[in-house]
């Protein structure tokens, strides 16, 4: 066998290895229900959950807890996923500033005991996406 063939085989093997590992490392978008099931099975893989903040009838956000004087690295809130399942989420970082205004929240993390511990929060703010409405407001000024 020629050397170049051996190298070719090694390269292909490595490429397959890369694909396998990528598939293994890839996370998934799940609901809280799935996340809880995973945690019960002892699977601690981190997942993505998409949800909205819990609000009362007046549209005020409920269950948000952040007191920098007590602990600047503790932020807790309640997220409602697409199946309307409510879950307490804890984020060991300061509260993102425009958190209240977000339309949609994507969190990454896993269930630990009875809370979801998030290590990343991605916010979708209306202004960024529904640009048109804001434009009308400003244009009307």
């Amino acid at each position, binding site marked *: 066998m020629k050397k170049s063939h051996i190298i070719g085989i090694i390269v292909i093997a490595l490429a397959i290895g890369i694909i396998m590992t990528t598939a293994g490392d890839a996370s998934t978008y799940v609901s809280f229900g799935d996340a809880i099931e995973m945690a019960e099975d002892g699977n601690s893989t981190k997942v993505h959950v998409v949800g909205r903040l819990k609000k009362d009838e007046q549209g005020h956000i409920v269950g948000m807890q952040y007191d*920098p004087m007590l602990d*600047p690295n*503790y932020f807790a809130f309640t997220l409602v996923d697409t199946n309307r399942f409510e879950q307490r989420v804890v984020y060991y970082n300061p509260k993102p500033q425009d958190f209240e205004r977000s339309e949609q929240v994507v969190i990454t993390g896993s269930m630990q005991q009875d809370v979801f511990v998030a290590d990343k929060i*991605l916010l979708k703010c209306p202004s960024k996406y529904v640009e048109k409405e804001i434009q009308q407001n400003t244009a009307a000024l």
Partner: protein
Amino acid sequence: MINTLIGDVGHASVIVAFVAAIVASYAYFMASRKQTEESGDTSWRTLARSAFYVHGFAVLAIIFCLFNIIYEHRYEYYYAWSHSSNHLPVHYMISCFWEGQEGSFLLWLFWHVALGVVLMNSGKKNKTWEAPVMAIFSFVQIFIASMILGVVIGDFKLGSSPFILMRDFMADAPVFKMDPNFVPTDGNGLNPLLQNYWMVIHPPTLFLGYAASLVPFAFAIAGLWKGKFTEWIRPALPWSHFAAVTLGIGIMMGAYWAYETLNFGGYWNWDPVENAVYIPWLVLVGGIHTMIAYRRSKQGLRASFILVITSFILILYATFLTRSGILGNASVHSFTDLGLSGQLFTYMAAFTVLAIALLVYNWKKIPATDKELSTYNAEFWVFIGAAVLCLAAFQVLATTSIPVYNAFLGFIGIESNAALPADQIAHYTKFQLWAGVAIAILTGTGQLLWWKKANKNSFKDAITMPLMLTLLFSSLVIILSNKFDIFPFKLDNPVYILLFVVSLFAVFANFSIILGLLQKKITLSGGAVAHIGIALMLIGILFSSGYSNIISQNNSGLLYSREFPDEINRDNILLWRNTPVQMDKFKVSYRGQFQEVKGVPGYVNKELLFQTDDAYTAIARGKIKVEDKVYYETGDTLELISPENTYYQVAYESPEGEFLLYPRAQVNPNMGLLASPDIKHFVNKDLYTHVSTVPDPNEEKDWGELQEYEVMAGDTIVLNDYIAIFNGIEQIEQVPGVQMAEGDVAVQAAMKILGERKEYHAHPVLMIKDQMMGRVPEVIEDLGVRITFLNIDTENHRFKIGVNVTQKDYIILKAMEKPFVNILWIGTIIMSIGFVMAIVRRNQEGSGGEGRAPKAKKERKAQVA
């Protein structure tokens, strides 16, 4: 008044550019036919050139029109309105250009025109390449020009025009129904994160790299098309170097911008937008290696074709990823979707299919050798190096494309919920670290084999010295960092040690090559210099990222720490104003909010500024001086550079001395808190500090109940735990921000409050204006008190003072150390120098024409020696 002329001229220029590109492309195609070339008929070529020049001038006209719209604040145009604003400085108006997709397409068009003109005029000796290469250039221009065409035929929209008027863009807005000639008075402004000098030069550099990568691709395709399977390498090689270096510098500029402006705590975040450029760069560098190997040993031609073509297609793929909106949730900073995804996909697919078809069709005709390479053959190692680069690129590509798989599966009806890895850094590092190790080993051994005669004994001689130096130096660093406390890290992770050792070896091996070439021909050492740069970059990345250390750990663990006490990093600390906190070996205190004032170096304390109704002007409340030089007197009107930005003064005290940092933050109505770090550079590390949260400035302060005091001149009272002395009152002529008329009287109280660090002077004002009593309270942010002068009892010389107390100002701060990050930047510069040396050399070779053969021989001789 709406100026529609400039937009019409611009739009017409776009159409001219588009049509001229079609004409140039067709004419160059005709000019490149065999019969045209043989007949000596140059009419097609002349036509094609003129068409390309027309195209070029049209592109310049588009740029002029668009810049005029931005520069003159023509907010009737959507582009100016959404990307610029009245207070934007001129240099950032340039950045407005590429904040929008249309402007960045324009930039790309412009660079293609510039490079096209260079190619048309530089190939004087080698006329044979002009027609086919420029045909491909013009063909690409058709596609890019179509992106900004903005022509609507029925339901079909071709391109998005930058010259669209506000009233057409949002025809439904009520304000335009009432008054079609309505012009907004101010624009939305440039994204504050892009208001950074790197953002003025980073996009043009990156797009020049994009544009330059078209040149080797065009030569490769022209070679396939015209059956010149081997000749294309020579003219394409210097251009490949040029593309790689501009792309590389562009990437690193972006990295430096992210380091300085964003606050994720580093220079590289594995964001899909970053990866999208990194992938083609790796492949292009791989392609350069196979091309150089081909130039020396006539091996690797097919690989060169594949890699050069792939790198260009990957650039198109990058464009598709960042602009089509397909990344959606996955990226924080891709462009907004303009509905061009179909067009972008067509562009990418057209060139992919065309290139692959040409390659497959000609595959058998491309010369290849069956000669087996020996292990002591440098080319063998060069090919392995190229394979490693491609694998590294493939790995990043495979992961970055996860949102694309989702979209594709969704397209064919399968629901997929795959997401990017939760811990991206760990995921990519797992592979890229080993790619780095392999590359470092290969650059060392490969270069030594390349320049020394390839046999066992001479190789052993060559490698001994670098190896010994490596072992000596690396053991020194390992011992010093572990046993003594002189580095900001302990090098004890075996994988990191491996990367460090092999990178050092690459540095020494390449350095020995430079020393060897010093006596012979130093101009040949570009490769060695570039490789040293890469090895230094690896070392810099290793230390700055691998040993990045958060020093703002908050171990005071309060109320909530019961939940998961061990696993959680508490990376942020709370700093009350003027209350020092011990952090690592520093005593850190937050000292107040500052602003940038035009004409004053550094920053000015907000306490010295009286804000007027116009956000951009303020009145000085005291002398503004920096180091004994007085810049403004009390009462002067000042211009603020960026009132939305607040700089938080943070003092770091250590036994070695004190320094101040000014991390910046603004609360943006659209984007929330935008915090940028301030970085203190030391020789062996950077200290990186940013605020994570500040009290919301838009929220009304919660002042406590008013407490009244009756005092006489000279009395001492206690306010919010501070001692305050009431010195008396004085009449004043002017009250900042108030227009005093005749008969109005104003008096101010003079008070002195003894704070922790200094004395504060408060001057609350009581005035009678238009027969009414008016009060201007004084707020001392540092102490969290507001003092109001309530009343005067003139008979008894007693004065009534009211005091409210609030929570003191605070910031939440994160700070980290980045050891030896300087080595990364130095490595980047050295790599660029190496590339430039190689361009000069390859360009001389390329233009040397037939003089190539003896030169190559000389090269060999140098290697023998």
